[in-house]
């Protein structure tokens, strides 16, 4: 070879990588001790983790689960583990966990919220996982009424008649030509069925014991407000985002105004409006359930943020996608549904899930207007003379429960992103 011309005579066979690159040793060298800086950081982080565990593990493990008050608990810990040992009083969780979960829901009716929660998982699964048979989506559509009836109780005819009204309306609406007439038929049939429900109840009283909103609390309340808010804020957010990017000037102005107003106001202000001011604007005599009012405010609040997240997704799509959909003759709603949203929502998944998680954690703010969510209950438990002075155990439990829900959402979003990533490459 003289430097300018070269012809390879034989093709080299592939070889396995050097042993220093594979196995646990190779992995550690690559990821933990790759450079001086990397090694220093590894040692420092490991030390921090060890110190943290050395402090917290004894506290968590040298604990009492059986005491009935804080002072009794401290005695037992010093008896068992020696004088001066600080241990956790998990007994407060053992004694109060049902209250933390259900609030003041009657204990003989606990099966109702539990069944509601199990059914919720069933209703969500076909929405979350495409491998579940599509027919179950019918159950998902009916679930809000079943769930409402199970939690609040009362006559079955109210929720039943609304579902029947929707079913009749959708069936009848298919025979109507124009979309606007379809919606009119739907609304009319729901209204008529709802009016009939009162007579049905007098004719054939079927129902379960009604529960007041004031009796609900704890995680039951958080999950109810959170789930309803999450399920409703996504479609409202999509509509607001589409409105904000629309060519229709008035629609656009309304959407921009709504989004900017809601984002400019703290959620607590909105909750105070819900709890005190809203009734002033209602016709006298209307009794508008407090939880419902809170759900509406939380939903509106989250949908304004949702709208901006989705608008980001819409803006990230190349102009050509809109043009190609237009050029094929798809009308606005079809191009949005079939071409634009599937892509825009996929881009927005991290932001959407962040908004969901934020909404779920914001449900703790309802304790400020007197609803007994887990934090509100913690305050009242701490006011009990038996448990006066307990802090870490209660809030730790609340934190753990929230972490489980939020981490589940986060993992699901990662699963979804990975799944959509695979299908596109």
């Amino acid at each position, binding site marked *: 070879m003289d430097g300018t011309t070269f012809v390879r005579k034989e093709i080299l066979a592939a070889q396995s990588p050097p042993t220093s690159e594979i196995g646990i040793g190779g992995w550690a060298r690559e990821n933990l001790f790759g450079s001086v800086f990397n090694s220093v950081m590894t040692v420092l982080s490991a030390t921090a983790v060890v110190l943290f565990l050395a402090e917290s593990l004894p506290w968590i493990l040298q604990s009492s689960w059986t005491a009935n008050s804080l002072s009794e608990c401290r005695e037992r810990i010093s008896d068992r583990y020696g004088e001066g040992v600080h241990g956790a009083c998990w007994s407060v969780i053992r004694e109060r966990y049902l209250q933390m979960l259900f609030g003041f829901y009657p204990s003989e009716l606990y099966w109702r919220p539990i069944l509601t929660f199990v059914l919720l998982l069933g209703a969500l699964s076909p929405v979350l996982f495409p491998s579940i048979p599509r027919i179950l989506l019918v159950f998902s559509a009916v679930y809000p009424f079943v769930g409402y009836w199970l939690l609040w109780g009362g006559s079955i005819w109210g929720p039943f008649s609304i579902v029947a009204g929707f079913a009749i309306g959708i069936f009848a609406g298919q025979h109507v030509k124009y979309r606007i007439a379809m919606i009119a038929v739907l609304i009319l049939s729901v209204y008529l069925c709802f009016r009939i429900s009162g007579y049905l109840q007098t004719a054939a009283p079927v129902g379960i014991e009604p529960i007041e909103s004031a009796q609900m609390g704890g995680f039951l309340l958080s999950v109810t407000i959170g789930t309803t808010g999450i399920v409703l804020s996504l479609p409202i957010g999509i509509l607001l985002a589409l409105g904000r990017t629309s060519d229709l000037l008035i629609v656009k102005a309304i959407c921009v105004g709504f989004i900017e107003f809601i984002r400019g106001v703290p959620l607590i202000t909105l909750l105070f409006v819900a709890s005190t001011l809203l009734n002033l604007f209602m016709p006298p005599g209307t009794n508008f359930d407090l939880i419902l009012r809170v759900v509406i405010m939380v939903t509106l609040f989250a949908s304004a943020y949702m709208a901006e997240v989705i608008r980001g997704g819409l803006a990230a799509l190349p102009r050509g996608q809109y*043009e*190609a959909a237009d050029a*094929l*003759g*798809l009308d606005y709603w*079809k191009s949005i549904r079939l*071409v634009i949203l599937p892509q825009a929502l996929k881009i927005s998944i991290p932001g959407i899930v962040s908004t969901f998680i934020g909404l779920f954690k914001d449900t703790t703010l309802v304790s400020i207007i007197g609803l007994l969510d887990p934090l509100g209950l913690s305050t009242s438990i701490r006011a009990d003379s038996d448990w006066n002075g307990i802090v870490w155990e209660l809030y730790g439990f609340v934190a753990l429960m929230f972490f489980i829900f939020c981490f589940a959402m986060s993992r699901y979003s990662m699963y979804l992103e990975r799944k959509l990533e695979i299908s596109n490459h």
Partner: protein
Amino acid sequence: MNPTAEVDALGNASIPKPGEVAIVIKDMNKWFGAFHALRDINLTVYSGERIVICGPSGSGKSTLIRCVNRLEVHQKGTIIVDGTELTSDLKNIDKIRSEVGMCFQHFNLFPHLTTLENCMLAPIWVRKVPRKEARETAMHFLEKVKIPEQALKYPGQLSGGQQQRVAIARSLCMRPRIMLFDEPTSALDPEMIKEVLDTMIELAEEGMTMICVTHEMGFARKVANRVIFMDEGQIVEQNEPEEFFSNPKSDRTQLFLSQILGH
């Protein structure tokens, strides 16, 4: 059929031609803000004609064909496609768009759908064709553009040339009467240009009415019955290809041709 025999240099709306009228553009003007993008465009396209539009960048070629399916809105004059006038009436626009296929420079396939689903989408949702039939049509046209084996892949897995052929198949699935091509080969690597041009030549030979913005002069020579040269938003010269290339009349055409053919 020799529809260009009596064409004058600017517009030809008044000259009768064999073949049905497909598109009539009359005194059409378009502005982008204050910028006068298209000026007094007059053009009649007959069924079965293959028209190539060329010109320097910014001359309004793309804008012109995008006005034909109203991706751009013209402000003055009339455009009549297949007997329907383009106005702000959404019904007319969607009707015309479903009759007029379009291929873009950057393909604009839908990346979240497979090749097959890309081709089936519009027939199912616009033409209300049953799924099974839409699938058969889609496979037919994918075979025609010679990539049936890519039907279940996503656009991101295909080469540029393959993507553009899928885009052509997607348009053909709507069984359009007119096809618009907006620089279909200018985003492609040189070795892929031929496969797309071959597909277009085949389409032309079957008698499809085509308007094609392109700088592929070989293609123009081979299939066009008319070449239109645009500059500064106006039609500067149009002629049959042989005459257009060998004997350009206007100075600007001569300059343009010397620049693109001279390297």
